[in-house]
């Protein structure tokens, strides 16, 4: 087996928003934790650049999908916690179904039906 798997995968355009929204579904979180969560959950395949994370967070906030408030972190420091708004939840649902449709379509092309089966 080829052990030279790429250690990082480039994020597809527009998927960062989806990942952020999905991460926040579990509950409020600050930027650093969101990045960490995405990295850990994707088994270190997805590395979120700080340079695009914060603009994305602020963009989502401007769209009204997430909202921010200042809370004390686990270590007792003031951190900016983001949480999903109802609008964001709706957005997440539609993004998710769009993503599923997209990945199914790509899957269908990459793994044609006739080669599938038991």
């Amino acid at each position, binding site marked *: 087996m080829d052990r030279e798997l790429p250690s990082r995968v480039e994020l597809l355009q527009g998927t960062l928003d989806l990942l952020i929204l999905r991460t926040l579904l579990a509950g409020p979180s*600050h*930027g*650093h*934790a969101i990045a*960490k969560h995405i990295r850990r959950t994707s088994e270190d395949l997805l590395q979120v*650049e*700080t*340079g*695009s994370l*914060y*603009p*994305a967070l*602020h*963009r989502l906030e*401007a769209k*009204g999908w997430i909202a921010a408030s200042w809370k004390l*972190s686990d*270590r007792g*420091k*003031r*951190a*900016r916690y983001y949480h999903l708004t109802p609008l964001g939840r709706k957005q997440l649902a539609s993004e998710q179904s769009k993503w599923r449709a997209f990945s199914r379509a790509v899957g269908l092309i990459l793994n044609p039906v006739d080669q599938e089966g038991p």
Partner: protein
Amino acid sequence: MNAFFRRLRWLAQRSRKEAELREELQFHLDEEAELHQAEGLAEEQARWAARRELGNLTLLQEDTRATWGWTILEQLRQDLRYAFRTMAANRLFTSLAITSLALGIGANTAIYSFMDSILLRSLPVSDPESLVVLNWYAKTREGDSVMKAMSGTTYDEPNSGVTAGIFPFPAFELFQKNDSVFSIVFAHYPSWQMRRLNVSIKGQVDVAAGWTVSGDYFRGLGVAPVAGRLIISDDDRAGASAVAVVSYGFSQKRFGGAANAVGQSILIDNLPFTLIGVTPPEFFGVDPASPPDVYLPMHTNELLGASNQFGFRAENYLARNYYWVHVMGRLRPGVTLAQAQAALAPAFQQWVAGTATNDQERANLPQLVVKKGAGGLDSLRRRYSKPLYVLLTLVGLILALACANVANLLLVRAAARRREMALRLSLGAGRLRIVRQLLTESVLLALLSGALGVLFAIWGIRFLTLLLANGRANFTLHAELNWDVLGAAAALSLLTGVLFGLAPALESTRVEVMPALKESRAGQPAARHTVWRISLSQILVMSQIAISLLLLVAAGLFVRTLANLESVELGFNRENVLLFQVDARKAGHKDPEIAAFYADLRKRLSAIPGVRDASLSEDSLIEAGTGLPLGLAGAPPNPANRILNIGPAFFRTMQIPILAGRDIEERDGPGSPAVAVINEAFAKANFGNRNPLGQHLILREPGEGDRLARDMEIVGVCRNARYGGLTRDIPPVAYLAYSQGYPRPDQMVYALRTSGDPLLYINSVREIIHQADARVPVSEVRTQAAEIDHTINQEITFAELCSGFAILTLVIACVGLYGTVSYNVARRTGEIGIRMALGAQRGRIVQMVLREVLGLAAVGLTIGMAAALGTSKFVESFLYGMKSNDPLALLGAVAILLGAIILGGYAPARKASRIDPMAALRHE
């Protein structure tokens, strides 16, 4: 919208957001560092690793800020701050630019507010858009026509026809029947006998302006009373009880309130009327030129006309060839003007054809023209629209000049900022971004000018109102700043800002970066690179000169016209004469006592200390204009002859020389032989070289058979004096003694020749007349000089305004020229330094600079002259005593402008000649 407000809110919290972002990122770094420390790095190294992973912190902040969505606003804020800073750094430039633009915008706003109030405003009635005014148009006023008699104003149309809005009463009844087009038709009649009503309220007598209206007038206009009720159909019947409605202003002035006025008994021309109601404050009738104080039912005309020899008679209602009644209507919903025209014109055509009696009359029948009635009658528009358009053109030119001026100054400044622009472009600024910033500057400049311009406009409107009113207290034209006008001013400012800012902005960003950066700080850019820019600047200077010339020519023409008018030979002495009008007949005096009353009044007035002579005439000389069948004994009446009823010592009082015979004297009274004095023109036209003294004149009373009214002996011949205006040819005039029969005296204008200021005698005059008969009001008090000035009011206004405009243009053009030449000299400091180092004399340098200026001037003057010759014929109708290509006005304008150009160019040229070659070269 929501997103917009969120952004606005964020903008307000901007600094807090910045701090939060910093804190958020700091927290991120701390967390990351903790993580690295947990992985075993030393604290310092952990921090550096975290910082490294974060990357370009500034870029990250920029990117995040960009998502906040206020970049555009942020940039605008930057641009504005930068613009304010640049403006503050160039105070002279800024104040010059703002002042000249503000003058231009202010003048335009002032004139536009007059246009708005005169030409564009609708009547303050319900649904004015559905109102129409009926008019007729006829091809010619010459020869026989069905229009045998008229009472009202006719207007000559440009294509040599004649038009008016007056109809016979039977035609009005015809229109009333046409209810497929109109929901209502109503009429009104501003009778001449109504123009000055004697209104007596509890013994207090005053003169008021009256207007008679049909019973449907107020209902048709949709006007509701503020107190009482308005005139209805039942009031407008022969034999109905006499009622009157007054305007709101009149009720305030005379009763102290609308409610007090209702139900009062008043005397109008000595007849009892009951006041039934008051019109709303904003209502001024249907003619913006003359708002009435009193509205009467149309049938009061017979009532008030009964005592007057020329008064209105009830037969006029039946007459099919007497044109007098104004007709307005309200179209049914959905009926267009064209449909109304198509429906009514044939009906009127058929009716009017029935009134013709011969072929010539049938060939020139009046045709019905249905016009929009939203603005009411167009008397004011007809009088002022052309002068206003001319003024608007002139102030438009001033604004164009100011724009060209500021554009040129900006261009000059843009050239000075070439290095700055090159630097910014080379550092990666987008061209669009720089153009936007420069435009922000110019639009800001224009908006500040616009704000200042509105202030100027307020003064301008006051000044213009004063100028147009010319001392008349009842001046009706009230222009004001309203939202329309302010909107127009704002739009104008924005437009000018973009207009004069765009070219320099585009120009200054067309910099070739490298050469511009390589230029020495004070050095001159090589001419090759700047051919286009210099020529644009030159074009602007030339167009400024051309526009200035146009305005100077206009000023010259109008000033010369005024001078011509003021030097018109009057034939009498205008100085130190007080004129005022009294009407004893309207106060109840009857024949023959009225003549004695007037004679007694003259005696009392002559006795006022300081009054050297006193006399009277039916009209003042300037307003005279009576034609009755008058001719030599044994010859038919000559229609060219005019008459004026005068009192004793008229010629002595007015200082008209008697060439032969004598003045009218006190002995020429009711019982004595009838006499007349004729002017030279009359003598020449009717007697040739024969001696007219002792000859007889016959005056007939018009009507069936023209009854003989007076047989008069000519007792004197006087020098020609102006009659009925200042500029009209003096007609043949016979001056008759007012007390010797038909036409019997009605109103009289007294003339007092005073020592010193005539206005000082007003109180004595009022006192004497009040003593003689308290029922007789004194009206139209003015000096003879003021009356003459009033007739040439428009010419005075034009001359004064245009002189002001011309001075303004000269100042603006000089400033522009000075700025441009100064800059060019500064730019060529090095070159001039070299020339002088090589031995050029100071005089040569001055010549060199001036030669270029004069070259531009020659082109500008040529263009301006061509434009002046081409356009000045449009103002020909405003001129008197000269042609529109008056050489004196043209040459004078060229000379003045050339002087100003040399003045504007000489100062910088002199400065150039003072350049120290060593300093200039070291500077390089």
